[in-house]
């Protein structure tokens, strides 16, 4: 049995709502079969007051195995943290205190990992993630912070984080399974897939059949802002709500697992050099990509050119 404390800071509660959508395992499965004991969750636990739980953990009466933080850490105004308080106490102070007691700390969602939507310019609340401010290491706890177990904050990035990824990371922690992290401290097992992999518009991309307006069947990468080929996330490998993904539904990937989400530009337009996106699929050289695209376009079958394939 391991104790989990879930705390919300500057958040929309979307990661909590996504967690309720997890199916493999489901939240109730974590409680029934993986030995999770939910000490506190702002929306879900029967206890009605946070104070006694906070006191039990910080005095060491209750062991804190897994601390989940959902939301950006708001340090404003003027470093006071008063944009986000619990009983007049800045939440950032409570997070710091709880992190010192925790075996493992998990950032649930891009806000707690990197700052997220609230850190978009002009970052009105002076917010940040737990160990990153967007791409810069540091954040609220500092780059060198480690949990009692020895790991940095595990960044389950996403806006919201993928339901099954959250549940599986919790299950791995509950089972003491080793968790390898990538260079952004995201659990590598779930961030070694690009959103592009498994997208049902892939064949359109393959033959350079790109859409200029929304609502079509083609690929969204060249014109409509899609970041699928640049974004590490399992969205098309482990479908959302067991059904689909944004790109399958014709919505561009906005790169929400990335530290710089949301991009500071028109989100439905792709910045380009000439006819080719400025940011190419991860690791691809421009000259070779352009050569490939020219050949691909010439090889495109009629069923692709005429958009006959339903994504």
């Amino acid at each position, binding site marked *: 049995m391991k104790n989990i404390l879930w705390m919300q800071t500057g958040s929309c509660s979307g990661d909590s709502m996504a967690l309720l959508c997890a199916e493999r395992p489901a939240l109730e499965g974590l409680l029934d079969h993986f030995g999770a004991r939910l000490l506190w969750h702002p929306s879900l636990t029967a206890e*009605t007051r946070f104070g006694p739980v906070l006191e039990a953990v910080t005095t060491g009466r209750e062991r804190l195995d897994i601390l989940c933080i959902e939301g950006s850490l708001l340090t404003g105004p003027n470093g006071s943290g008063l944009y986000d308080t619990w009983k007049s106490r800045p939440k950032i102070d409570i997070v710091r205190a709880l992190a010192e007691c925790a075996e493992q700390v998990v950032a649930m969602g891009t806000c707690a990992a990197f700052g997220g939507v609230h850190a978009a310019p002009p970052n009105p609340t002076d917010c940040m993630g737990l160990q990153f401010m967007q791409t810069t290491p540091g954040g609220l706890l500092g780059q060198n912070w480690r949990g009692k177990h020895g790991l940095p904050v595990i960044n389950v990035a996403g806006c919201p984080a993928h339901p099954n990824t959250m549940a599986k990371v919790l299950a791995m922690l509950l089972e003491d399974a080793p968790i390898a992290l990538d260079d952004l401290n995201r659990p590598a097992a779930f961030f070694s897939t690009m959103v592009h992999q498994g997208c049902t518009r892939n064949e359109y991309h393959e033959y350079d059949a790109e859409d200029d307006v*929304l*609502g079509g069947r083609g690929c969204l990468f060249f014109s409509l802002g899609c970041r699928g080929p640049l974004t590490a996330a399992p969205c098309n490998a482990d479908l959302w709500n067991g059904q689909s993904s944004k790109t399958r*539904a014709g919505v561009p990937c906005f790169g929400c697992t990335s530290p710089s989400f949301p991009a500071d530009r028109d989100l*439905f337009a792709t910045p380009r050099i000439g006819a080719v996106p400025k940011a190419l699929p991860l690791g691809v050289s421009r000259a070779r990509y352009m050569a490939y695209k020219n050949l691909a376009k010439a090889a495109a079958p009629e069923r692709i050119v005429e958009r006959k394939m339903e994504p």
Partner: protein
Amino acid sequence: MSRITVDIDLNRVEGDLELQVDVEEGVIVDARCIGTLYRGFEQILIGRAPRDALVITPRVCGICGTAHLYAAVRALEQLAGINPPRHAGHIRNLCLMAETLQSDLRQTFLFFTPDFCHPSYAGHPMADVIARAFAPFKGRVARGALEASRNVLKLVAIFGGQWPHSSYMVPGGVTLPATGNRLLEAKDVLARVRAWMEQDVIGDDLDTWLAVPSGPELFTWLESVPAHRDGGLGLFSRFARSIGLHTLGRGSPHLLSFGLSPTPNGSRALAPGFFNGDTCRVEPLDQPRINEHVSHSWFLDYPGGRHPWQGETIPDHKPDARHYSWAKAPRYSDKVVQTGPLAELRVGAEPLITNLLSAEGDNTWLRQFARLRRATWVLRSMQETLSALGGCLDEPHFVDPKVGKWPDGQSYGLVEAARGALGHWVRIEDGRIAKYQIVTPTAWNASPRDSQDQPGHWEQSLIGLRIPDIDDPVQVGHIVRSHDPCLVCTVHFIGQARKTYACV
């Protein structure tokens, strides 16, 4: 007479909730709702491309992002004079209703009914049966609601890719058409959710239940057979009334709804409007009557109220007794209103809720009961909308509005979200967002006092309450949770001194 002030924080709501109540001899004589979180969305939107609102504003709220997306797209379509095709309208309405049903199930069975398992009810004759149904994560109905709420959201994913936080409603329509395949997937989802609702929540056929027309017939129906008595709805209702929740928590008599019209021909629509509690009549909705007051909020004061297009939001933290919240106080014709399923069904003249409201007035049981009634109403409408969608698969789901540069101007988008009336007001200048103002349902319900010193709806609903145990005020929990608070949504649209934009 001793007067003490008690700070109360509560969970099992969306976000963190803090209240301050003044108690004299065991009775609440004054109450203040305190907004404790500011996220700065309005600042983030200023200067961005108009369509970015379709990505940014759903992230205001994790439980009603679809409603924000819908409000944002309506505001942009109004600005540019775009009429989306009905194929898109059906899909938008289906997704909105799926989100509403999800929210109603989670709010009722994950947030509200766990309070019935409170230790102070251990001696209640229904305690065992309540625990078997409603114990968090364990009770039969609680477990079923977890699964059903997951299932119904599959419908949003079928058409929109994912829930929460997708952006498939775009000016001109939706990004993905319905096909025979998707239609069948959606039908299957709804059939399963309906089967669970009929089996474990209603204990009867959905249509039979929705035909119950009045309070007396409801109470007869509730007691008539074990399936009605012991379904989630029957247990909730019987227990809630046995502990007197139908006598507690009367708030504002004025009701506001932005309405729901799930089918384009308007059959079975819940009309938008304002129920005037003084005259007991429904008046047509008149958007310019909406204004916001800041007299008790931490903003630079202005006299009276201002319409969202004219709003001014300059933070001015004054640590005195008069000012106590980061939330503004929205008013309709300067009246305090409540919004949510009770308002939606009464303004829309749904017979059962109309009858119950006139018989007993608004109360804690009725607000929560109306939420369950609305969930079932929405479920039936979703099946009807899905049929209508099946009839227009050959029509376009998206018509390119060919907007190169967005025109200058101001517009609004109004949507009835799960928690009630949600409005987005936007101003575009030079092709960019120059102002964005959101008034959420909880902003209406949880508002502080206004410039006429009228307490907000929640505040009113607590004043006069007798609380036997000041350290564990379980009745306060019932009343406040019956309002379905969404605190994450409420107080995020204020300006900031460091970067103040010109707000006329």
